[in-house]
């Protein structure tokens, strides 16, 4: 039994924005897989709901004429997994989507909900960080595009203004073309678990060197992060085993994991360094490269 006071199904994004503006206490519900958990815990914040579940405007994955990829915020993880566009161009997102919860959750949970929920462990977040994703945020005053790295304000806090809705996620061609990625989720279980550490790598190679390297982590800090030091340290590095050691040695300077009852800082650091190597190696394999 949930203590829901109002629940209004919006017929369009515009209507959802108006409903949010009319009732400042109202919150959006998409797949509901985070919202219903909070309601079950008795959290009063979600007693007024504006429902955007299944809105056609928010659904769909497409490649624009300029090759920009656009993923509707209402895309479920199952849809993401089954999408040819994602499989072909950004399989790192297939890795991430496939690691979420279990089949039932993936059938309803949306990528937009995952991002807007604002937690560091969100499995789609660190891959989108590594892809330099842009978020399309539509509000009463129109639409703005924000790099995902600027969207996260703190644990559970994101940059959504009054009445604002995340409508789509955009990946620009320069960020994914000729780039290869891999998402490595480390959790205590293979399914139905939140990441202890999530590691996303996106890279480009040319002539035996690493020409572009983007490394992002979930749960290595209060919000998902990019590892700028490690990235800088290895850009242009030859594809030798020393590359992995270099990444592992630098990445500890980028991250800020904490001790909680779920895992100690030492444990997380250990996993972070190891995953940085393993995910990079996997991405290189996808790029058809071998370290020698």
């Amino acid at each position: 039994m949930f203590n829901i006071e109002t629940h209004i199904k919006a017929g369009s994004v515009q209507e959802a924005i108006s409903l949010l503006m009319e009732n400042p206490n109202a919150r959006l519900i998409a797949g509901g897989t985070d919202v219903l958990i909070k309601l079950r815990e008795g959290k009063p914040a979600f007693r007024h709901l504006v429902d955007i579940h299944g809105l056609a405007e928010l659904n769909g994955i497409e490649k624009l004429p300029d090759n920009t990829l656009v993923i509707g915020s209402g895309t479920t993880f199952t849809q993401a997994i089954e999408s040819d566009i994602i499989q072909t161009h950004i399989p790192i997102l297939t890795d991430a989507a496939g690691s979420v919860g279990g089949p039932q959750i993936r059938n309803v949970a949306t990528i937009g909900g995952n991002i807007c929920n604002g937690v560091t462990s969100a499995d789609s977040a660190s891959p989108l960080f590594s892809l330099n994703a842009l978020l399309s945020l539509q509000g009463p005053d129109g639409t703005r595009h924000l790099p995902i790295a600027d969207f996260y304000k703190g644990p559970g806090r994101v940059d959504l203004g009054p009445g604002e809705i995340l409508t789509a996620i955009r990946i620009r061609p320069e960020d994914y073309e000729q780039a290869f990625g891999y998402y490595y989720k480390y959790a205590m279980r293979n399914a139905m678990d939140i990441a202890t550490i999530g590691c996303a790598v996106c890279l480009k190679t040319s002539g035996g060197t690493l020409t572009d390297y983007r490394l992002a982590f979930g749960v290595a800090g209060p919000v998902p992060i990019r590892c700028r030091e490690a990235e800088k340290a290895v850009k242009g590095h030859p594809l030798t085993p020393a590359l992995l050691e270099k990444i592992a040695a630098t990445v500890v300077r980028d991250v800020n994991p904490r001790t909680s009852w779920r895992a100690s800082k030492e444990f997380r650091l250990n996993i972070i360094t190891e995953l940085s190597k393993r995910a990079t190696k996997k991405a290189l394999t996808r790029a058809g490269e071998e370290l020698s």
Partner: protein
Amino acid sequence: MAVGKSVKRIDAVAKVTGRARYTEDFFEPDMLTAKYVRSTIAHGRVTAVNTDKARQIEGVEAVFTYEDVPQTTFATAGHPMALSEVHKDVEDRLLLTRDVRFMGDEIAIVVARNELAASEAAGLVEVEYETYDPLIDPEDILAQDARPIHEGRSNIVGEHNYTFGGDVDQAFDQADHVVEGRFATAMVQHCQLENHIAHAYMDDLDKIVIVSSTQIPHIARRIVGEALGMPLSRIRVIKPFLGGGFGNKQDVVLEPMVAFLTLKLNGRAVQINMTREECMLCTRNRHPFYIDVKTGVMNDGTLVARDMDAISITGAYASHGHAIAAAGGSKQSSLYPKAATRFHARTLYANIPVAGAMRAYGTPQVIYALECATEDAARKIGMDPVEFRLKNVARQGDINLLSNKEILSCGLVECLERGRDFIDWNRKKKDYEQFKTGPIRKGLGVACLSYASGTYPVCVEIAGSRIALNQDGTVHVLVGATEIGQGSDTVVAQMVAQTLSFPYEDVLVVQAQDTDVTPFDTGAYASRQAYVVSNAVFKAANQLRDRILAHAGIMTDEDPKHLDIVNARIVDNRTSEAVMDMKTLAIDSFYHKERGGQLTAEISYKTTTNAPVFGCTFVDVTVDIPLCKITVNQIINVHDSGVIINPVQAAGQVHGGAFMGLGAALSEEFLIDPESGYVYNNNLLDYKFPTFTDVPPLNHDFVETFEPTSGYGNKALGEPPVVSPPPAIRNAVLDATGICINTLPMSPHTLFSAFKSHGFLDGKGGQHV
């Protein structure tokens, strides 16, 4: 021949189509909901309770506190009544308590017209406490000046000692080597699919009807009577289909409270339907153990001496209390019957959730320590661990020196041989030599188990069965044996079909248990059900068979000794010719004006034997040192449980048990704050019960012996499969890494600490492997 066949479960279609009705599917008009008000501290005493705000919530019908309940303490353990003082359960519980003994203790209860109102009101009950330091660590609990968790009682709930097999100290003196180890197991939970749920109402103003998801309807009836001071005959317990129990429902958890509430509310129906979080925190779970083991061994591989000292933590209330440690310890004597053995155990109260019965009842803890210690002894003398076990384990004809009974059936040696072949032990031992260094390592492990087929001679073992011939030639069977999902009703039908020579489909077992109707049986626990009921069923079926043949004799004017039943027909055994079908006989027995009657048989039978069962687990593992992860590549459980009555159902028990064993070995534990007693993870996200993707394909095999003390040659199987996977995995990890990890679970966190202290990982992200 119905026994030995994988007939379709009686309830299969009802369950897969969703038609099977569980407790939650029964409701009464205007049924009320009750929610407990639980303590937010682990140890203390309530100084004030204010229920005013709660009572003002719309829909609230009543609020009761510890002041409103009967002040006689009662025991909750699902044991048969013990006539001797020694085996009496500890009476330490009230329906609601003023003295808080764990975080989640029940102080008050709100009854409302719906769940939301009940929850909201429960949250508004204001409680003030005087707080005491929580006692969690055994050392603190045992300290001279420790506060008694139950006033007037020692913090030691029970203690006992036994020795067998000769002078233990002398055996150690003469041993070529003595190996020591210290082991610890975690508090884990049953996580049965169906949470605890019960409701009660009064159909007149005299009798309370309780519908409950329980493993022990007849015992629940008695305990409710004790808790409320009412005669047992005024209480009726009905048990519908059950979504599992694993021992968590071998305890009386909700029944006394719903009975109390309906009594207070003029017989209105009241339900308590626990959330998963409540069920995990506030019902029962497995006792954590701390065990020191010493093993004496000769150079030739003979195990000569064993000394085990165990501390078992029962938490805030005794529940099954000391019976757990005693039962766990007693399994050694049938596994290694020749070594001089001493066992000493103490069971302690603590300010943590309550431990009770859980699948295999103390044995997983004891056998884990025992089988790790056995491995260490084999390694000490450089002997192959399988050979070492083959040399020392029980064989048919050995005497169990604790019970002084001969072991009449034992296939353990063959279990070990089959397991060794399956896992390809000898070849892999060689192949894995190259995986003993570097970040990825491989190893093999083995562990044995023995278990019992019931609780005799500690408890009475009684079972009842009534079989009646129907007018259409089928039979209906009533048993007190309790179907809780394990498939008990199906094997009872197979047994009856076998003895009567009826088609399995013609044997109809009455599904729901109703203590006003079903014969007495103490319930589903101790892996006793099929073993103990087998004798009652065998005797009742034979009795009915005789009565059917006697009636056939009257009808045909033949001597019944010339008649037989073959596939539900009366046959002349001289000519093998069919004389009549069962329906003809039945109609005559019911409706002939002068002869016959309804043909029935009823037996209540006490079993005074307790057959030991045996088994082993073999595993093949990979250990990823940097990621602190164990992958079980292959696992097999091989069991001697006597005759296997239904191979598919038996396989289900083995797979389920091995699954649970894998969870206990690798990931499951309650995380309890050592200072406050707060449980961090009483939910299925943070309590790492494995998912199907975490468990490798499960393999099983049976070495079928014939147990002469059982109606159909069968022995226990329900619990044993959970016992041996954890030590087998620990031994394989030792084989792979050279490190003894003597704490369960072997989670990534445990491995990380072990690898760090061995210098494999530096804790700053560096590796040295």
